[in-house]
């Protein structure tokens, strides 16, 4: 009897906290299960800088959907570098919708899994991009290194911060914007290659996503200039102090079209096809467009946005990926595939 008591004492030492944990978790799960039937869940797998945008948009959509159908919709978010996020969906992350940084990543999901049909980009207006953006420079306040245009980035002694084009969609836009600029200015592919090679020699650290790069530049104080999404640059300036940073708009940049689509396979499996489609369509609605502009994305229907928000966007000449590189498939194969130009020019 004594032995059993000892054993009991020994195990009660471990069991007490465990029991407490499991009760805690069990009650927690129980309360959320109760109202499961009239709640629909949607998983939106997105890229790095859209956190604030979708936080507000999800609330707006949930309200709209409740009013329209009486159904409560809970939107779950996952953020990260666009390439990494696409990889996760390929590996089985059950996204109902993907809202990524560039079309190639969605193409890749479709090709590798068959979850998205090949013509996905024609299912919604504007190449399935409800908002666009571009690449700008973020510099320290007062622009101490006098950075005005792309040429200044390759000057002696300038350090440039950009994420890794292998994992980040934003970084691929950065890279292609620089390439397009140099080719236009110096007139040949060789000159552009030379320019981008010199540019990446100035990069001390390659983060895996846009948000990581912004933190490197803003929080850790590394680098003279950050190549950033326009929305990310605005956010950094407004969130972390207008007295610390300036936005510099180069003479020419690239028209970034971050596309959205339903992942048919998972939406069908989860029975969420209709709400997923409506969710994405709502991005194009007046409410959606207003939220989009508020978070520094350029709306495709500027007439719905607050004019005050629209005034913040600087005028800049934008090159499209189709005219400069013949589309994402070609651009990816030439530059970012294994053994492509980026692999050839970049050595840490």
């Amino acid at each position, binding site marked *: 009897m004594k*032995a059993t008591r000892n*054993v009991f004492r020994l195990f009660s*030492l471990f069991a007490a906290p465990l029991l407490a944990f499991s009760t805690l*978790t069990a009650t*927690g799960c129980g309360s959320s299960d109760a109202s499961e039937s009239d709640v629909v869940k949607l998983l939106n797998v997105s890229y790095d800088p859209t*956190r604030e945008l979708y936080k507000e948009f999800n609330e707006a959509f949930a309200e709209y959907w409740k009013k329209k159908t009486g159904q409560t919709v809970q939107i*779950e978010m*996952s*953020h990260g570098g666009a390439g990494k996020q696409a990889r996760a969906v390929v590996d*089985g992350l059950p996204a109902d919708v993907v809202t990524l940084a560039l079309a190639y990543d969605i193409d890749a999901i479709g090709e590798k899994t068959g979850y998205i049909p090949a013509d996905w980009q024609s299912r919604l207006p504007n190449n399935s991009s409800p908002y666009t953006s571009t690449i700008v420079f973020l510099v320290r306040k007062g622009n101490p290194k006098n950075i005005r245009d792309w040429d200044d980035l390759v000057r002696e002694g300038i350090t440039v911060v950009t994420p890794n084009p292998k994992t980040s969609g934003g970084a691929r836009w950065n890279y292609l914007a620089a390439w397009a600029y140099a080719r236009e200015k110096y007139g040949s592919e060789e000159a552009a290659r030379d320019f981008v090679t010199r540019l990446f020699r100035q990069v001390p650290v390659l983060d895996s996503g846009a948000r990581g790069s912004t933190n490197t530049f803003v929080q850790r104080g590394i680098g003279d200039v950050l190549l950033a999404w326009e929305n990310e640059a605005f956010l950094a300036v407004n969130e972390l102090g207008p007295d610390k940073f300036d936005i510099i708009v180069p003479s020419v940049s690239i028209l970034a079209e971050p596309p959205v689509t339903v992942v048919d396979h998972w939406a069908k499996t989860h029975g969420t096809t209709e709400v997923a489609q409506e969710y994405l369509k709502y991005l194009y609605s007046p409410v959606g467009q207003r939220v989009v502009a508020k978070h520094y994305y350029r709306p495709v229907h500027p007439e719905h946005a607050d004019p005050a928000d629209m005034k913040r966007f600087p005028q800049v000449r934008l090159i499209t990926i189709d005219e400069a590189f013949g589309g994402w498939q070609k651009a990816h194969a030439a530059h970012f595939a294994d053994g492509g130009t980026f692999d050839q020019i970049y050595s840490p």
Partner: protein
Amino acid sequence: MAGTITLRKSAAGTPVRLATGESTAVRWLLIGISLTFLTLFLFLPLAAVFVEAFRKGVGAYLQSFNDPAAYAAIRLTLLVTAIALPLNLVFGLAASWAIGKFEFRGKQLLITLIDLPFAVSPVISGLIYVLLYGIHGWFGPWLAERGIQVIFAVPGIVLATIFVTFPFIAREVIPLMQEQGTEEEQAAITLGASGWQTFFRVTLPNVKWAVLYGVILCNARAMGEFGAVSVVSGHIRGKTNTMPLHVEILYNEYNFVAAFAVASLLALLALVTLVLKSLIEWRTRVQHDQEEPS
């Protein structure tokens, strides 16, 4: 008996300076270096976590926990730990019992295998589960047909945590069991005890402090694991983010107070772990000293 007592007396009576032969300056220098190092690399970062967490006052600190996503992250961390810890306890005891008390071929191999998670980078620990249970992995299609989601869901996080933490308990208990040998167990069996009786009445009481020590270390690591969990999590806010992942997310959203507030919880856990660990070491020493005279 008398001999031991004289020895102890002389050891206590002799000044340490003469015994080691080092000058005072050298001793102070060594202490100084260690303290500077500890302050710079351990104490300051830990203090920084709390300073940042309370930067905007206690109200803002507490407000950070009034967020469903933070609550979900804490709950998930506790759930994962509550599953991983008992399993590793059973595994650790079984493995150390086998290794400590029995002779068999391949024993060294088993010990090496138990150490594997220490040697493997946590990222790899996560990736192997993606390769096995990911939708295109070895078992992925079979699981998917049955609607079972392992990777990017709670089961994957549990698997990765178990993998990373399973050496902790076994590693603490094996050396002690080996050192204790099998005499007491043999005596118990000779007196007619069954296998279970021997285990619960003889073996387990002998190693209970080592087991507890292992459990505490295992618990700390299970709650704090980042790398392996990050790979299999999918980072769904409020659903598959554990506390360490939630800290990263908050930091990336420029929500520094909340990020450090959650981090301070993890730091507190580390401090509690340290206190418990010292307590157990002290208990073991007391027990050891009590046993010695007899």
